[in-house]
């Protein structure tokens, strides 16, 4: 019996599609509810980011609850930046109690890159420790060894950067996450299929599901911004140029075209187990992307 619908889909061998939404900066959740409604039947799981890029937002857990209410499959992203191990364990207990069992374990971006630069960075745990924390809790005890009255059961995942410039060190980390019990990985944005293939050559030895991440770019300016200011993301020059070449207003369409191109190739070659679409603010364009990538109707 699979822990969650997502886990079931992951284990089925079919092509998995997930996407993510970013909660609002404020208490007005009408926009995010609208996105949830649009997307919930088109994908196998919707991630909610946790103060992505260290910008303070409506909590991931809150939006996951909304997804659950509206009938979608949530994936809770938890970072280690803001909370210590007590708060993190409590979060998992609560999420589980509300039927939110897919958890993506992340270390989290640094406080410095966000909009509350004076905040105290916590980082009591890192992503590997967080994965193990959940597995420990699943065994019925908390991190201090105390018995839990009601143990959670989760489908846990982590992230990986298949195009990092120093891959050896990233792979050491990847190994540790696999050993820690990660079942699936949603990668950072893939832009170079050759590099991704090399990564998959290594990763396919493990019994984990890899979902290739794709960022929908909307303009050359956005690509450049990501290169200079967003941790871990490097958009190659050819793509920047391809975006720069289109006329004003057509950037997003071009971004969709590019992402669709990649996704179709991945699927055709069976390179990995699925994709994770990151629309980064342009969530409305996801249906169009799915269509262009011939992923409509593949799902529930």
């Amino acid at each position: 019996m699979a822990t969650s619908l997502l886990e079931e889909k992951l284990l089925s061998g079919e092509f998995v599609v997930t996407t993510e939404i970013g909660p609002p900066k404020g208490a007005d959740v009408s926009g995010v509810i609208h996105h949830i409604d649009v997307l919930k039947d088109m994908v196998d799981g919707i991630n909610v980011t946790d103060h992505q890029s260290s910008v303070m937002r409506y909590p991931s857990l809150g939006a996951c609850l909304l997804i659950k209410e509206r009938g979608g499959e949530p994936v809770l992203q938890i970072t280690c930046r803001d909370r210590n191990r007590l708060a993190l364990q409590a979060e998992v207990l609560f999420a589980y109690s509300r039927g939110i069992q897919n958890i993506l374990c992340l270390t989290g971006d640094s406080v410095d890159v966000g909009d509350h630069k004076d905040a105290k960075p916590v980082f009591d745990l890192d992503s590997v420790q967080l994965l193990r924390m959940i597995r420990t809790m699943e065994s019925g005890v908390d991190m201090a060894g105390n018995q839990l009255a009601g143990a959670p059961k989760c489908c846990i995942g982590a992230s990986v950067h298949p195009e990092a410039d120093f891959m050896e060190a990233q792979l050491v980390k990847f190994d540790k996450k696999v050993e820690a019990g990660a079942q699936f990985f949603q990668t950072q944005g893939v832009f170079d299929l050759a590099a991704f293939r090399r990564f998959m050559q290594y990763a396919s030895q493990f019994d984990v599901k890899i979902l290739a991440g794709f960022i929908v770019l909307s303009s050359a300016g956005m690509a450049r911004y990501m290169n200079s200011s967003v941790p871990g993301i490097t958009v190659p020059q050819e793509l920047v140029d391809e975006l720069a070449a289109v006329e004003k207003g057509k950037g997003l369409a071009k971004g969709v075209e590019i992402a669709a191109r990649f996704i179709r190739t991945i699927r055709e070659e069976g390179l990995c187990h699925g994709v994770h679409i990151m629309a980064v603010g342009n969530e409305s364009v996801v249906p169009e992307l799915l269509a262009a990538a011939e992923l409509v109707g593949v799902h529930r």
Partner: protein
Amino acid sequence: MIVAEQKPLEDIIRMVRPYKKVLLLGCGTCTTVCNAGGETEVAFLHDALRMAEARAADGRREYSEATLKRQCDPEFLEHLTERVEGVDAVVSLACGTGVQALAERFADLPVFPGVNTSFIGMAVEWGVWDERCAACGDCRLEDTGGICPITRCTKGILNGPCAGPKNGHCEVSPDMECAWLLIYRRLERLGQLERMRRYYPPRNFRPISRPRRIVGKAGLEARGSHGDVTA
């Protein structure tokens, strides 16, 4: 050593405003080495304060200067008993420890910090000091090839790297090398990569709950760095 940086002049001016006779006290050890509070800096601060007063109209202070070998040892502070007579405030250019030692010894004298004590670090070249040690009380440099992930990784994680580095530099700044990439290379060079492949459980933050104490002498209950009572 302890690295500190002199506070902005306006802060010091504000601190001493209510007082009439102020002693500027330097430290002959750490703050001399990092050029923040030694004898020469005390003299320079004195000159600047005098000039600031001449330009403002809020009354004159009388300053005196002294520099002790260290301010963090009671024996050295004893030499001040005469110096502080008649003085109604002291600006100490020692690190936070010195300031507090001074305040404790001369409980009736307002003591103000003239520097921001910043970190434990070293000079990488003249005039440039980098943090190196967080005084975490749980040193793990054996496993990281002598490179501290607590100070040099901006997130202080133990199972690094994260996904942030670009061109070998931390997401926070292109001037800061990713500590974990440095650790990887160092361990590789030493043939000790196994150490990095190990899982490191979450840190024990108990040693850092403040204030910490280390007892070197026998006879008292000795506490190890994990707070356990050792034999």
